[in-house]
């Protein structure tokens, strides 16, 4: 059976003539879900989201309903909703599409969520580079306020909630929720230590805060449209809804593909949707969910047990596109930003590129990540410029092992995982690169672009 797309988030924005103005959105059934939500009690909306089994789309895949439940209601402090639209994971470009092409869909999800958690104020933290996107959002917010979907007395419910669009300063770590909160408060974007700074308890201004990814909130709109139980039927048990796969790199048709969770495989994604490798090339590896997830190599076999007890034995092409299956293969669905690498790429250059990114983006707050990322970058760069030593391969792995799991935020894992996964899988190629480049042979024997 050949797989097909099931656009939910992207259903409207792909339609010819669909525009970002509110009338167009309302014509396509917009803000009906909000009306439905406001007619319900906030707790009932939370319950629907919990039943839906919706998982966060920011990369960690944490159940959204459960996250909302953690909100500290006893403190008596106001609570805040923060929208994480700081999409900065390399290889990820799904939220941008929503913001630029269908901002009201996200705003509706935001309004529903704010109602559900009774937020006092909404902050949309948008990536600094999305300058135009921020303007689009501001216009959309003004439109929504004028129609009573946001701002004062939302839909006559007596509940009011204002929205602020805050542009980031251009930093990857500010996509980490506590780093984002610090940055939002006007401080340096240093992630906070957990405990005690769990956002649901001590978030913005040390008040209970929910930080949700932009796409997650767009999904919330659909949870309300379908109802939690119906939404849970989309996808597979344990991973409901659709995933947006942003495929980039060396495939024929890179782009965004929205697929029901678990209803297609990587093979189908890469060959059927993306048209397979470029002419005369073969696939070598993929980084499945944004650059921080662990790399998968073509030709590997993945064996193990799923959380439901089912045993599996897959080639990369057979892995189903749902978070549990991908996690069982030792990596993560992450943001769904799949980076495809083919046989024209020398792996050390890919690794060096990634390492340089993480060294540039580490906030520098805690020691292992700050020093480890730069060390990794320097070692891999040295290899590419011919100064590599054979021992560098094990050194790279050792450095990565000294970073992962020992840092304040998950940037440590983001630094370590590409190395921890790529080094064992491509050890021979790295050794070959080191030797050739030591001898001044910088021309890859592999196919060149």
């Amino acid at each position: 059976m050949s797989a097909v797309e099931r656009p939910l988030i992207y259903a409207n924005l792909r339609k010819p003539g669909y525009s970002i103005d509110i009338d167009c959105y309302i014509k396509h059934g917009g803000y009906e879900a909000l009306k439905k939500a406001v007619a319900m009690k906030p707790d009932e909306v939370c319950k629907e989201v919990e039943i839906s089994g919706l998982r966060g789309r920011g990369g960690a895949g944490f159940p959204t309903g459960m996250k909302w439940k953690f909100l500290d209601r006893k403190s008596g402090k106001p609570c805040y909703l923060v929208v994480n639209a700081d999409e900065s994971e390399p290889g990820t470009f799904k939220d941008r599409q929503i913001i630029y092409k269908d901002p009201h869909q996200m705003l509706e999800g935001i309004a529903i969520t704010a109602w559900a958690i009774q937020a006092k104020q909404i902050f949309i933290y948008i990536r600094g580079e999305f300058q135009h996107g921020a303007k689009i959002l501001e216009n959309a917010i003004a439109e929504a306020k004028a129609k009573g979907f946001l701002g004062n007395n939302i839909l006559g419910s007596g509940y009011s909630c204002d929205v602020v669009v805050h542009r980031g300063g251009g930093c990857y770590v500010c996509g980490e929720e506590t780093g984002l909160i610090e940055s939002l408060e006007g401080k340096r974007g240093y992630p906070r230590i957990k405990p005690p700074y769990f956002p649901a308890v001590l978030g913005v201004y040390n008040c209970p805060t929910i930080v949700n990814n932009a796409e997650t909130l767009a999904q919330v709109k659909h949870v309300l449209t379908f109802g939690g139980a119906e939404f849970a039927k989309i996808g597979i048990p344990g991973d409901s809804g659709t995933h947006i796969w942003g495929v980039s790199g060396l495939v024929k048709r890179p782009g965004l593909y929205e697929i029901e969770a678990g209803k297609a495989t990587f093979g189908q994604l890469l060959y059927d949707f993306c048209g397979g490798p470029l002419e005369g090339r073969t696939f070598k590896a993929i980084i499945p969910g944004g650059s921080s997830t662990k790399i998968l190599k073509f030709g590997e076999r993945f064996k193990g047990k799923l959380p439901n007890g089912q045993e599996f034995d897959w080639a990369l092409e057979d892995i189903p596109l749902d978070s549990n299956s991908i996690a069982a293969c030792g990596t993560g669905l992450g943001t769904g930003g799949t980076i495809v690498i083919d046989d024209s790429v020398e792996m050390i250059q890919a690794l060096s590129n990634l390492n340089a990114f993480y060294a540039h983006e580490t906030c520098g707050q805690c020691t292992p990540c700050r020093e480890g990322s730069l060390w990794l970058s320097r070692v891999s760069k040295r290899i590419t410029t011919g100064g590599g030593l054979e021992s560098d391969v094990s050194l790279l792995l050792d450095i990565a092992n000294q970073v992962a799991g020992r840092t304040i935020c998950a940037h440590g894992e983001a630094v370590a995982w590409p190395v921890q996964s790529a080094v064992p899988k491509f050890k021979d190629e790295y050794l070959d690169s080191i030797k050739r480049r030591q001898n001044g042979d910088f021309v890859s024997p592999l196919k060149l672009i």
Partner: protein
Amino acid sequence: MVTDNKPPLISINVDGVEHQVVAGTNLVDALAKIGKEVPHYCYHPKLTIAGNCRMCLVELGSPMRDRATNEVILENGKPKIGWQPKPAIACATNVSPGLHVKLDSPEVKACREGVTEMLLLNHPLDCPICDQAGECKLQEFSAEYGKGYSRYVDEKNAKPKKTRLGPRVTLDDERCILCSRCVRFCNDIAKDPVLGFVNRGSFNTLTCFPGKELNNNYSLNTVDICPVGALTSTDFRFKMRVWFLKKTPSICTESSVGVNTTIWSREGKIYRITPRQNDAVNDTWMADSGRELYKQVEDAHRITSASVKGTKTSVDIAFNTASEIIKSGHLAIVGSGHLTVEEQYLLSDLAKKHSAKTYVPAHTGKGDGMLISEDHTPNFRGALVTGLTQNAAVDLKALSSDIESGKVKSLLICREDVTTLGLSAQLLSKVRVIVIATHKNATTDTAEVVLPGLTVFERSGSFINCQFRLQSFVQAIPGPAGTLPDSSYLARFAGLNVNSLWKELAQHVPALAGLAHGKIPEDGVVIDSSKWSSLTFPEGRLLKFAPAGVTA
């Protein structure tokens, strides 16, 4: 004496051994109390938790509980321990009953080795010329917990080596390990947020905000708490290796707070003064101005020899002249809050024997609400306790008219420049004046007899601070050749034996009963002050002090 209520103890398990620790305390501190070191850089007991150095990573576990019944799950009759999957920072952990800690596991060892190696990657390793060497945490922990070698072959980061952060602090950014202690100190303790980091990642650089400088009166505390040699005292920089210095416990004389200090000296010369921790008085801080006081020792106006009528003479001759003046009668005494409790007692005794009126002038001024109080003498309370004065505020008007009227014919002045307190030089010329002083001033210029006094660094004694806390200090360096401590002159005037002074004090001063100079605990002892509760004192709220009627 006031004793604290003891907080409850709980049991935690460290490397398989049960230990009793104080409930709710920070794990790093709790372990230190039972003799277990957890290496750390960014953690400081008096600052907020940053958790950024990652040196204190340990493995933590706690007894597992059944989700349904909340009962502790047993395994072989013992609670089953659920260990956290990742190492956790001890500094952000408070002890709780049943907490299990691994300090000695291969994982913990690997964490420490890893962090040490990482910290040294871009560190200049210039210990041979670094002031911090010998008291550097990075140096100590690298030796203790590091691998002993580096695998780093790439180029190191270059950063500014000599940045002037303010008038007293110089920064070497290459040595900085970005622990943020100084930043947190300025933000939270000094309330002068001028420090911050610029750039990103390993290129992070500590700096002052544009247009600002680190010039608050507590700036040198950043040097004390810097775990490495990044922040250095401009005064002390490159002057002396710390391991050559002798440490002497002392008390700051700047104000009635009585900040506990350490005097660092070598061969009779003081090189620096640093705060000594006393959680009831000054925590781990002291003002910059107090650190400069050692400069009075070698000040150009220092009095190093006795004189009679302006002519230098031996201490003996000057002393005999002074004795004769005292015996001639009609004596008045000007004491001081700068004198020690012992000296004040001797003066008080002398006054009784000669029926002399005593005056202890107050020196009040601006306080800073932290560690400099409104009373700028260290021991005004001592004058009350020893009976040298009965009042909190005294002026010299009565003395002035007594001199005018001829009631007073001789005057003994200890450590006060009375010309600044309303007694003119002309008035002083009407009486025979004996002065004990450390520095030349208008009073010493007019005095008939001048006996050289010793600074706080050159003598031993005790002060009573604004909390009525009796604190002792000991001599750090010898005084100028031929000089004697004030107490020996005063004891001889009063006909008492210096060596049995504390016996007298304990016997005759009820508040000091049972005490002796050598028996005063390191952090002092609060004496019964109910006798003076009706007096009004100038001190306002301070770091560890609130005036009566103000809630702390």
